[in-house]
């Protein structure tokens, strides 16, 4: 029950942080020049129409009232109506969450599948040619702009080999797996080098530990020592890095979403900002905040699975 108490406490702690985030996002976006109604009407609508639209979206109210209204409605699960799409923001965001979440989970999975074998090989052959090539290769894929890598993959897998479709996100679970493979691979090869770097150095550090000496002395094979004793102990910092980066990706996958035409949250955010669609920006900020904190909570909880000595208070 200690664990449950911990989770509940963490969830409650999220509330003030979320209020802080929305307040800052609210103020910063409002400080920007650019009026959603003027952008929307393209300058041709009459002043009466513009005034009527302003009133409709509550933009004629003083700023603090607008914010308080937003908070009150948000507490009731209502994030307002999109100025651009005229639909409830909650509905719009829910529609868009699935592709983004699938993409990020898939990309992270690919990253993990790349990270574990490569960092073990790197650590076991530290400072040998294999290690160097893995690290240099990682630097190259990490430094490649994702839109460019995306286009290269499209050319290769899509146009030449005709293995994968080059845009959209498909239908059904298998469809998503197939359609999102290339974009997820782009995320994977972007994330993996960071994770490999971190995991490799903690593997090397743990390999120096006395209990590893002991395990070796017991006569365990090097691979077994690695998998059973070293890897588990070395994972925690890497999980943290992964969690931080997933946080980034939740709103930051926009480039990949654009290149592969995936109807996700990143595309929605950029469009909303361009049109100054305040309610949608606010709603997205809130959702991003919640998702980031949830990812971190999950990461924290996973520490206990990796290392049973971790106790939650």
């Amino acid at each position, binding site marked *: 029950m200690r664990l449950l108490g911990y989770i509940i406490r963490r969830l409650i*702690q999220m509330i003030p*942080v979320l209020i802080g*985030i929305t307040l*800052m*996002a609210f103020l910063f976006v409002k400080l*920007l*020049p*650019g*009026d959603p109604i*003027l*952008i*929307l*009407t*393209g*300058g*041709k*609508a*009459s*002043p*009466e*129409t513009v005034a*009527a639209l302003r009133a409709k979206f509550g933009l004629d109210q003083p700023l603090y009232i607008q914010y308080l209204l937003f908070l009150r409605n948000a507490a009731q699960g209502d994030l307002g109506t999109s100025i*651009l*799409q*005229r*639909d409830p923001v909650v509905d719009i965001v829910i529609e868009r969450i699935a592709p983004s979440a699938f993409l990020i989970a898939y990309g992270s999975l690919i990253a993990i599948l790349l990270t574990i074998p490569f960092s073990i090989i790197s650590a076991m052959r530290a400072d040998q040619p294999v290690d160097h090539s893995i690290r240099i290769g990682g630097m190259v894929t990490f430094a490649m702009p994702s839109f460019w890598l995306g*286009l290269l993959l*499209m*050319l290769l897998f*899509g*146009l030449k080999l005709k293995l994968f479709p*080059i*845009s959209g996100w498909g239908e059904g679970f298998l469809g998503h797996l197939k359609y999102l493979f290339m974009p997820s691979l782009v995320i994977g090869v972007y994330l993996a080098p960071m994770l490999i770097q971190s995991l490799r150095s903690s593997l090397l550090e743990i390999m120096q530990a006395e209990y590893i000496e002991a395990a070796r002395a017991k006569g365990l094979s090097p691979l077994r020592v690695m998998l059973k004793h070293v890897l588990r102990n070395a994972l925690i910092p890497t999980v*943290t890095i992964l969690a931080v980066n997933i*946080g*980034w990706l939740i*709103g*930051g996958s*926009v480039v990949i979403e*654009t*290149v*592969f*035409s995936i*109807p*996700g949250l990143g595309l*929605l*955010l*950029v*469009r909303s900002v*361009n*049109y100054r669609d305040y309610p949608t920006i606010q709603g997205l900020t809130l959702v991003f*905040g919640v998702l*980031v904190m949830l990812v*971190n909570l999950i990461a*924290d909880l996973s520490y206990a699975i990796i*290392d049973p*000595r971790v*106790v*939650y*208070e």
Partner: protein
Amino acid sequence: MENIRNPKRHMGVLMVMLAFVLLVVACQPAPAQPTEAPPPPATTEAPMEAAPTEMTTTEGCTPTGEVKRGGELTLARLEEPLSLDPILITDNGSIYLQEQIFETLVVPDETGAGLAPGLAESWDVSGDGLTYTFHMRDSNFSNGDPVTADDVVFSLQRAADPDVSQYAFAYQAFDTITALDDKTVEVKLSQPYAPLLSAVSLFTGLTVPKDIYQADPEGFGNKPVGSGPFMVEEYTRGDRVVLAPNPYYWKLGADCQPLPYLDKITVLYIPEANSRVLGLRNGDFDVIDNVPFSEASSLESENNLLLEVAPIYKLDYLYINHSKAPFDDKNFDLALNYATDREAILNTVFFGYGDLPNDYMPKMNFWDPDVPLIPYDQAKAEELLAQTNYDGRTIEILVGAGDAPRKQIATILQQNWAAVGINSEIVELDVGTAWDRTVAGDYDVNVSYITSDINDDDELATFQGDYWAAGDTQAFFSRYQNQDASDLLKKARESLDPNERAKYYSEIQNTVYWDGYSVPFNFTPAVTSSWNYVKDFHTLTTGWWWLESVWLDK
């Protein structure tokens, strides 16, 4: 490791997220430009080889051409539809699809430049030009209900209501809109208004079924019901719209069977230009729109692909703020024109696609080809400049951030102008901010564009050229003031004689263009590409296409 409640780290992540949001806010890529919303109305006429208008009556239809029916088409577009309720939107992503789903009494014809009967079979105009009576044909919505005069009146009235309609300006001359009976609509005007039929064909007034709309106004944009050739089978935001034939559609095809020819059309939202082009080559898409000019010639050279470069009502031009010195001096504005190598811009930025404009507005029906072009002449520019009191101050060239072609134009302008002694700097701002400053008059010049919503010259001629026009856009934010132009525009709007109107518009074009209203760059065409088995896919001057007449030869 025991206690891992570490609020600092979480704050760090959150700050990073917030930083990202702000970063996006600060430096956005080019979005669909809000500078302008697009053009007008509903359904039209048959394809090239299909029935001419008089055949749309059922009796006596003679087949006019061979077409193949059936098949599915995938169309990949730059823009997504925001809503399918005509009253809510101003974006091309939405309008072009609504035109396939709804109709107006009168519709743009198969070129976009003319008008054809839509829901109205015919109409009468009273002698004083103040009363229009529309006689509607028997037609049905896609749910089987008949389209009544009540539906039309309801739709037009909301389009004319400034409290809900962003295009109420187009209906300003409307006094009353009434249903005389089930199938007759009467529009009374408060003053003669030549563009009336064009206004009736505008997308904002597309006919929605009154009862269905009023039962659920909020939900209508997601589940629209119209009387156009297609109905919406699926609408997934940010992804696709799937269209199926409306079984009740009235218009007949070249084979004397009801349109449309296709069984299904999937319209995909593919915002990345490279992804559209790759997808076309890959066979994932049959048609793509907004082909980047840089890719056009390579697609054109492929055997199985077609490229269409279609003239549309669009002008790329440099907005000039005439309320600010030195732009309040006509000589300076003309000097900017003489100093700008517009041919070079056309060739490098637009890859030669388009035409050099001799006009301050897009090329429309009353465009006069004989108005002389301001030549590229550095000596003349220097001469004019010497007559101004320009003090060498640095001019700000505003460009929407992330808009590579317009940034290129700005760079050429900067170099050209420097050659005659005009200093300038390029200021990149996100489109929202750039637009805000343009509206507020807080700018020098802005590299942007305009498109027309209506296939009548009046809308843009007046918006751009008449400082005192209703709507308070101050000659579309240029603050250009010319009383003569304003008077001529009024005459042109109120004259019902096309020849007389042509004369007025020619004079207006000559006056405003040669006043150095702007530096126009290109009558920019729309470029689409398709596989060669796609027949009769054509972009209208209004920007969209009549999907009802598209068929597949495969």
